[in-house]
């Protein structure tokens, strides 16, 4: 358990709904759910979620803090926006799901091995480094995420696609040494750091 997590538990005690309202992006919408279940029925991944959105909202109201924040459910969201389009109460469900995932991650209690979470981390580190995505480095990191042998296997399986992309100049084979980022990545790093500080301050999380 991280210090932030402990601090939040102490701050909100049993009122998880209030915690979500104040800390999760679009969290103030959770109370407006009327439990019709259209979101769960509309989700293309619905049957694979441990807790579809309707249940997540109910669990938040019922104060089931640990179950909600440690579940893999909201990491399943593919941002198809079906639920947002259909919600009769116009809840931004996709955004709430991402908000919850992000909050759990920041508290350090999101499921460690969740592939979406790991890919998101790899992607962020990659793009934040130079300001532009290094696609070759991203793919390699993703392939070798689960170890050397599985990386080789994945690479071989995708080889023809890779060669095709190189031939049509969609992939630079020398990107590992010659990737061009933004002009001054240092300034970008300062900018991102400041943005994080502002957000943390707004959400009351000491960084």
């Amino acid at each position, binding site marked *: 358990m991280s210090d932030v997590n402990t601090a939040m538990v102490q701050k909100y005690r049993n009122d998880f*709904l209030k915690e979500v309202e104040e800390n999760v992006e679009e969290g103030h919408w959770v109370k407006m759910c009327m*439990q019709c279940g259209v979101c769960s029925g509309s989700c293309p991944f619905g049957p694979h979620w441990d807790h579809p959105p309707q249940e997540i909202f109910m669990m938040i109201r019922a104060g089931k803090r640990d179950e909600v924040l440690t579940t893999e459910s909201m990491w399943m969201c593919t941002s198809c926006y079906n639920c947002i389009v259909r919600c009769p109460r116009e809840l931004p469900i996709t955004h709430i799901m991402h908000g919850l995932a992000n909050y759990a991650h920041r508290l350090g209690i999101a499921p460690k091995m969740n592939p979406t979470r790991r890919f998101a981390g790899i992607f962020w580190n990659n793009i934040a480094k130079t300001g532009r995505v290094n696609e070759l480095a991203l793919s390699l990191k993703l392939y070798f995420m689960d170890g050397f042998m599985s990386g080789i296997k994945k690479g071989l399986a995708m080889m023809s696609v890779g060669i095709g992309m190189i031939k049509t100049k969609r992939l630079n084979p020398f990107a590992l040494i010659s990737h061009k980022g933004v002009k001054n990545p240092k300034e970008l790093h300062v900018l991102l750091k400041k943005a994080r500080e502002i957000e943390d301050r707004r959400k009351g999380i000491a960084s």
Partner: protein
Amino acid sequence: MSEKKTAVYVCRGCGIGNRLDTDQLAKIAESEGKCSLVRQHDFLCNADGVSTIRNDIDGEGVTHVVIAACSRRAKTDAFGFDDVALGRANLREGIIWVRPDTEEARETTQEMADDFLRMACAEIQYIKQPDTNQNAGTNKNILVVGGGVSGMTAAIEASKAGYGILLVEKTGQLGGWAAKLHKRVPDREPFADPVDAGVSDLVKSVEYEKNINVFLNSSITRTSGAPGQFSVDISAESGETVTENVGSIIQASGFSGYDANQLPELGYGKSPDVIDQAELEQLAIQAADGPIKRPSDGKEVESVVFVQCAGQRSDEPGHLPYCSGHCCNTSIKQAMYFKDANPNVDTVVIFDDLRTPGNGEDFYRSAQRKGVIFTKGKPQQVSPVDGQLEVKFHDMILNDEAAATADLVVLATGQIPNSGVDIEPAAMQEVEDGGGESAAQAETETREVQIPVESILNLTYRQGVDLPHLRHGFSDSHFICFPYETQRSGIYTCGPVRRPMDIAQTMEDATGAALKSIQAVENAVLGRAAHPRSGDLSFPSFRREGCTQCKRCTVECPFGAIDEDEQRYPLFNESRCRRCGTCMGACPVRVISFDNYSVDTVGQQIKSVNMPDEFDEKPRILILACENDAYPALDMAAQQGLEYSAFVRIVPVRCLGSVNTIWVTDALNSGYDGVMLMGCKKGDDYQCHFVKGSELAHYRMSKIDDTLQQLQLEPERVEIYEVEITDIQRVPALINEYAAKIDEIGMNPFKGF
């Protein structure tokens, strides 16, 4: 009235002239119909056509008019000659619109038209212009029973329309339940917060209206009479009784709260902090927008749980099976009492289905914005734990057992109608006394013991002291087809005595009932019928010499319009009569008739049809169609160009209840190959405009099988159908199916006898 003179007008418009041989029709009217004056016209409903008829009535002394043109339901304004007896032969909707325009069909279509004209000519010979009802009442005052929101609203609305009102209230003050509310659910934009109940304004309006005479602490101890001439005894608590005359009555007796003591599992009675919604209103009034304190120790409530559907929408014994409609909105409102005073109070509403009629959805959203928590669950138990209350419930979203603790638990219990004595068991008792069937007896014995209920109206009708109930004790009135109408003419119900409802619905309801009661007194003064034959001047009479005093008419009249005189002959109460003819259908000796509708008017139509002999391969099917739903459905089928068999001969009847079995047996005896009866839906969800007509017809026709057997005829030759007004596609299909069936069975062997 001077000598009878019948005129027949055959219209050639709307394609009738092209499709039918109208000269032949005219000839039939002259020779077979024995009508002295027969005219054809190219466009009978235009000014020239109408004035032709008018001139004949005024100049030629025509007393009976047959219009052979469109359906009797069309062009009623143009052909509204109310000073003569009027008959209609339906050549347009009844024939040319339902028959194909082909060479092969021409012959059978013409035969159909010939018969329809014969039928109209036969009917008109037996129709008389109705006499005026000599017993019409003239009182136009309206009695309103109940001084709650429904009663006050009805009184104010009728008073504003210029009618004198007697408003009788049982208690010492006006306002009813609404006077006990802290605030009410909002009735206008933005539907966000509870608003003032508005009762004092209503009471002021009642006092302001000079036409309204209020009787407090009073009840109705006797009601007799009929529309336009009710006589009521209004007795005050002090024992003083006044007798007043009124023209119609609005029963707005409202509801009683469900007794929450029947819900020990939900903690009622075990802790003073488990209360119902009415008790919370008292606490809220005491708190006056400040923090609400719990009854046990006066502590300010920090958490409250609302339990929806407490003892409602449940099949368990002692529970109400229905939804009371207002309680979800009421709990939302009450949760706001807490949230508005202090947003930190935990308010949880445990619901099964949240039902928020009207603009309640906006109100619901407003409560969610204020932080009221809504949990979908089934409450199982409420028990006191450590000075608080624990509500155990099954969370229906998470499918999990859950519990909530609270300082206060509010049970959303239901409405029970104040509809007075249930007269059905009493009627059953009578059947038993008369040496009734053992089945009825068994049913009476298994019936639960009823707690004696005070009568609301104390009617002196032979059918019982109060209005009949339909289901769950609510006063019978078909809430879609004919709301407010009861089975007692001139008496209307509104508000929660009719069905569960909230204030907004009640006020609308009361306005509707006020209009109906005004219509009733205005019709009564003119001696006309009320809904659904509004404006009908005819009324039943009977041939005393033939009557066997069997009492069938008095028992079967759905409206309590027939009593018995000292010699046990039927005593018709013309003003109460709705002119359905159920008595006429019931009479085994056929002595009951109306001036313009009788066993003869229909019987002669049936006999007038030209019956082809057995080897012509032209069957004849008689259709007796209820004029309320089945006949309009047939008309609409015609408008849509749907086709049906040319072998049917259709006679509209006022109600299937008016169908006397003699018509059916006569039809079969005279060679008809089949008889179809089309009436409204019967049973608990009945749509019969005369309540029991369709049901009685089904019962009577079930007995006709014996007769058919005696005649050695197939039972399929008489079929009865339930038809709705929307069955536009179904009705022609039914006819064609039946015609095919008759083809299969073969011809009626009685032809030509």
